Structure formats: structure tokens, C-alpha cells
């Protein structure tokens, strides 16, 4: 009875006993959810257009952030460093398409997946040689990201919202809106979606596979840079950031591998739920640190009922 009480009643009593704290937890969860959604978005774009499960998205985030900070350390002004980093990401996209993807066209999915793990390892080693393995500080101030915090006192309590988190959320919304507009309205965006629907049909109407792949990997690089700036401002820039790529995987499961909307909703849901679970169930009952697995187990349970994720394309199987 006591056990059931501690699982089913006490957490909710805690939640409504201190609504200001609950609000704070929800906000924190929402912010990390935005980041998960951004990384998942990079995955979804590449998966949609090429059926490649791009494991390298996490390291691309680290690599973009490191390049930005590294360039600034070399004396490049912050606002110039951003376009230069984008240039580096573009070169990376071209290199990946030329060296890795082009020779592997039409190989089984798992081979391409392994190739992206190869890319990950290569970039880890390469990045560590160039930038060193130590933790770096994101150039928040130089990029004119506000650093103060707003404080509220709802329900007679206290909630603090950091301005850089708010900037991150607004920035992410702008980025996603821009991306959706691009995918749905522009000619290139339509070409990307056409390629996602059917490679051969798209090729036969004159869509260039290699151009689109470079473009898609570049967009993934842009998203990676945005994610890197936001996450770096919160936790510093280091190779430990790479693990957040794993956080995007359950988001993908939950939202569906092909769905942009799914990535966003899945990201937010997982960000909020894992925070709530950790604070109200994980820490008091399970010894904490449940954030490493909660998202996966949750996504797994959802998947048992919807095998293609919440928003994924319906799986039709033929013999």
C-alpha cells in the first residue's frame, strides 16, 4: 500500500503542493525538448531524402560548435565566425556526399548506417586533433545572446526563466518555421520531398540526387550549428555533447522517422516527460539518473502500440 502510494499518489501531491516548482521543471523540460527536437529534425531531413539513418548528426553538432568557438579563439570576430562555420559545414556536406555516399548508393540501409558511424569516429578523431579534447565555453556574449533571466512569482512561489533559453526556444521556432516553408513551398524543398517518396521517379523527372544530398546534409549542418550554439550556451562545448545524439533517437521512434512534425512534438514530449519522471519518480524512488533510459523505454512502450511512431508513414508490407 505504501509502495503504491509512493508511486501513484505522492508524486502528484508533490506536483500540486508546489506548483511554482512544477512550472520550473516543465520549463526546463521544454527547453531540453526543443534541443532534442532540433537534433531529431536533422535526422529526419536526411532520412526522408535518402533513407540514411544518420548517426553522425550528434558529432556534427559538436563539430559545428567547436569550429565556431575555435575560429573565434583564432581571432575571427564572432559575427564573421558564424558564416565561416556555415562554409565549413557546407564543405563537410560536399565531402561526405563525394567520398562516402556516392560510392555507397543503393547499398542496404545497415551499410549506410555503419558508414555514418564511420563518419562519426572520423570526425571525433579529427576534431580532437584540431581543437583539442578539453571543454570550451560557447561565445554567448559575442553572439549577442542575452544572458539575464526573467523571474516570476506565480502561486506565491518563484520561477526563473533564463533569457538564453528563451532565445533558444524562439530561435528554434523561427528555424523550424523557415524549414517547413522551404520544404513545402520552394522548388528545392519539393525536390527533397520527391526524392524521399521515390528515388527513381525523382531521378527520372530530372532531380539531381547528388545536389539534393549535398543540400540536405548542409541543412542538417545548419541545424547542427544552431543546436550547438544553444546547447553550448547551456553546458559548454565538448565531445560529451555527442551523447545528446542518443537522446534524439527515442524522439525519432516516438515521432516517426519520416515526420518533421513528429520530431518536434516527440522532442517536446520526451523533454518534458523525462524531466517530470526524473524529478518526481526517478530521484525519490529509483536513485536518480533515470534520464539515460527513460526516453527509450517510453518510446518503446509507445511503439508497441504504433510500430511506425506517432506520425510516421504507415508501413505497408508486400511480398
Amino acid at each position, binding site marked *: 500500500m505504501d509502495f503504491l502510494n509512493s508511486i501513484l499518489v505522492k508524486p502528484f501531491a508533490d506536483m500540486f503542493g508546489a506548483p511554482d516548482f512544477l512550472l520550473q521543471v516543465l520549463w526546463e523540460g521544454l527547453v531540453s525538448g526543443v534541443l532534442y527536437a532540433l537534433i531529431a529534425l536533422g535526422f529526419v531531413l536526411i532520412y526522408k531524402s535518402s533513407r540514411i*539513418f544518420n548517426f553522425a548528426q550528434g558529432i556534427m553538432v559538436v563539430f559545428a560548435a567547436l569550429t565556431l568557438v575555435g575560429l573565434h579563439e583564432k581571432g575571427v570576430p564572432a559575427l564573421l565566425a558564424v558564416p565561416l562555420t556555415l562554409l565549413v559545414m557546407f564543405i563537410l556536406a560536399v565531402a561526405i556526399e563525394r*567520398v*562516402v555516399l556516392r*560510392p*555507397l548508393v543503393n*547499398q*542496404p*540501409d*545497415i*551499410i549506410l*548506417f*555503419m*558508414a555514418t*558511424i*564511420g*563518419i*562519426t*569516429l*572520423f*570526425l*571525433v*578523431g*579529427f576534431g*580532437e*586533433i584540431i581543437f583539442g*579534447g578539453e571543454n570550451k565555453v560557447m561565445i554567448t556574449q559575442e553572439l549577442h545572446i542575452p544572458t539575464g533571466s526573467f523571474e516570476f512569482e506565480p502561486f506565491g512561489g518563484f520561477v526563473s526563466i533564463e533569457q538564453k533559453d528563451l532565445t533558444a526556444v524562439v530561435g528554434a521556432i523561427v528555424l523550424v518555421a523557415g524549414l517547413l516553408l522551404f520544404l513545402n513551398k520552394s522548388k528545392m524543398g519539393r525536390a527533397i520531398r520527391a526524392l524521399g517518396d521515390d528515388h527513381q521517379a525523382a531521378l527520372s523527372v530530372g532531380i539531381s540526387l547528388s545536389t539534393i544530398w549535398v543540400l540536405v546534409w548542409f541543412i542538417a549542418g545548419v541545424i547542427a550549428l544552431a543546436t550547438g550554439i544553444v546547447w553550448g550556451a547551456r553546458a559548454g562545448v565538448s565531445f560529451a555533447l555527442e551523447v545528446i545524439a*542518443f537522446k534524439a*533517437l*527515442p524522439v*525519432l*521512434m516516438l515521432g516517426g*522517422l519520416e515526420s518533421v512534425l513528429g520530431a518536434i512534438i516527440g522532442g517536446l514530449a520526451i523533454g518534458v516527460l523525462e524531466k517530470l519522471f526524473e524529478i518526481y519518480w526517478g530521484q525519490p524512488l*529509483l*536513485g536518480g*539518473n*533515470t534520464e*539515460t*533510459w527513460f526516453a*527509450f*523505454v517510453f*518510446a*518503446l512502450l509507445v*511503439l*508497441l502500440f504504433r*510500430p*511506425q*511512431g506517432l506520425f510516421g508513414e504507415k*508501413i505497408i*508490407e*508486400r*511480398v
Partner: protein
Amino acid sequence: MLYRTAGQFKTSYHADHALFPVRQDAILLGFILLLAFVVFPLTASEFTFRAMLIPVLIYALAALGLNILTGYAGQLSLGTGAFMGVGAYACYKLTSIFPELNIVLAIALSGFFSAAVGVAFGLPSLRIKGFYLAIATLAAQFFLVWLFEKWAWLYNYSASGAIQVPNIDMFGVTVAGPNATAIVQYYFVLCVVCLVTWFAINITRGRIGRIWKSVRDMDIAAELVGINLMKAKLSAFAVSSYIVGISGALFVFLWRGAAEPVLFDIPLSFRVLFIAIIGGLGSILGNYLGAILIVALPVVISALPSALGIPIASATVEHLNTMIVGALIIVFLIVEPHGLARFWAIIREKLIMWPFPH
């Protein structure tokens, strides 16, 4: 010329289905076994045993387990490291609860624990397919490693949170723990690996193996011809996790000597997956070739600069190593996506035809 098959006539179906339809294959295998059982132990140094021979065998065994699941039954798994951990922790608990238990028995039993966990986490495979399943196996990976860390009973409430292998004797010889000699451990691992390989070759050639392959190639078609998908997939998970669990127990007891939960984290899973894929999915031989490449290569690369007299900081060597392994994975995938085993198959084909082109 060396591989000429002329004159080797098969007079019965039985002979045609034999394990070695070509006599030279059997001779080659005998030669390799001779090398492994006699030549290496006579010539290798303590360092070679600990840094190359034992890890190659253990990793090959883990990759063999994964290959049964991924290469034969077509279920992609990213949780191998955690299943190795289950084997290791089960073996540790067995030896500390029953100190009198024979180590061979303890390792064999610990495989059953990881098989059970494997089946439990394999259940979603009945609903989920492809990459969704791969991510689902990551749930096992992260959850189990978390459990190794938080469940103090597993590591006997030791303050460090790590498990330490005690000295274990078998027939008066120390086989595990700090007092064991490398050569004894090598022979122990070699015998287990040979036994499991023999088992794996036969199971994949037989009825179950064919069922697995049909499920891999197209599971709906397999279901239509009357194959029970649930039995097929779960048996693949069970056999695979059993072998992986044994390799995990060997990994800690006969090689590392101690382990903490981080050891079984995702890099281990990926390393085993690399070995299976670079070696060749759906092949037994490939696991050994892949393990030799992935395990021995970093050792060679780290030893190279000092051997050539080039002064490079050890941290840089490590980073270079990561980079080179990453690049090599890509190169191998591009050159031969079917792995090193296919390379050998092509070479063998050419040798049989030689000196004619086809």
C-alpha cells in the same frame, strides 16, 4: 593450383552436403587450428596474449553472437555491450554465491541469464522492425547499464561500484583472477571459442539456421510458408544473447579481471557491431577476420610511431587512431560492403579457377 578441386568426386548427397566439400578447406582449417593451439602459445609473449590474442578471440565470440541475430535472423541490435554485461554480472554473482562452482559451469550458466534478458528485450521485434527495432535495443543498452550502476546487489555492495574477479582454480590451475597466467587464459578462451564456433556453424547450417535466414530475407513470405515468426525471432535472440553473454563473462573473467558499468556502454556495442559488419554479416569466418582487424589494428597503430622513432604525444596517437579506424570503416564498406568474408570467398574462387580466368 593449391585449391584445385579436380579429382574430388562426390558419390553421395551426404558427401556433397559435408561441412568441407573441398578437401583443401579442411586442411586449411587444420593448419589454422595448429597455429592457434601450438604455434602461438609457443611463440607469443605475455603482451601479445593480453593485447591481441585473447581480446581477438573474445571479441570474435561476441561478434559471432551478434552475427547470428543480425546477419542470420536480420534483426539489427545495438545493445550487444549491455548483454555482454548481463553475462559478466551473472557470472560474477554465480561465482560469489557459489564459490565452489566450476568456472566453466558458471560461464555456461551465465549465458542463460543474458539469453533470458535478450528474449525479454527481443519481444518488441515481433511488432517493430528495421531501425525502429535498432533504437528499441538501445533501450536495453541504456537501461541495463543504468541497472549495473544502481543495483548495488549486483556488485556485492563494493564501494567502488566495480566488480573484481577473484582467483579461481580449476583442476589445481588458476584460470581467472590476478594470479592466472596469460597462456592458461588463452587456452581456456580458445577452447570455449572453438566449441561455440562449432555449435554456431552447425546450428546455422541446420533447420533453425534456415528458418532464421528466411525470416531475414523476407519475414512475411516466411510466415506465409508456415514459419512461426515468434519462435524464429525469439530463438535468434536467445541463441545470440547466450553467446554474447558467454563472451561477456569471458571478457571480464579471463581478460579484463575487473569491470565497471561504463565498460559495457555503447562504444562496446558499436565495436562488436563493427567487427560483425566489417567481417561480413551472415558469415562465421568473418567475425574472426573482423576481430583481427578491429582489435589488432589500433595496437599496431599505437606501436608504429615509437617503432619508427617519430615523436608523437600519446593523446594524439589515440585521436589519430579513432580517425583512422573511422576512415577504414568507410573504406572497407565502399570497397566490399559484404565484408572481409566475401573477400576470402572471392580469393578462394580465384584460387580454384587458377590459372584460368573463369
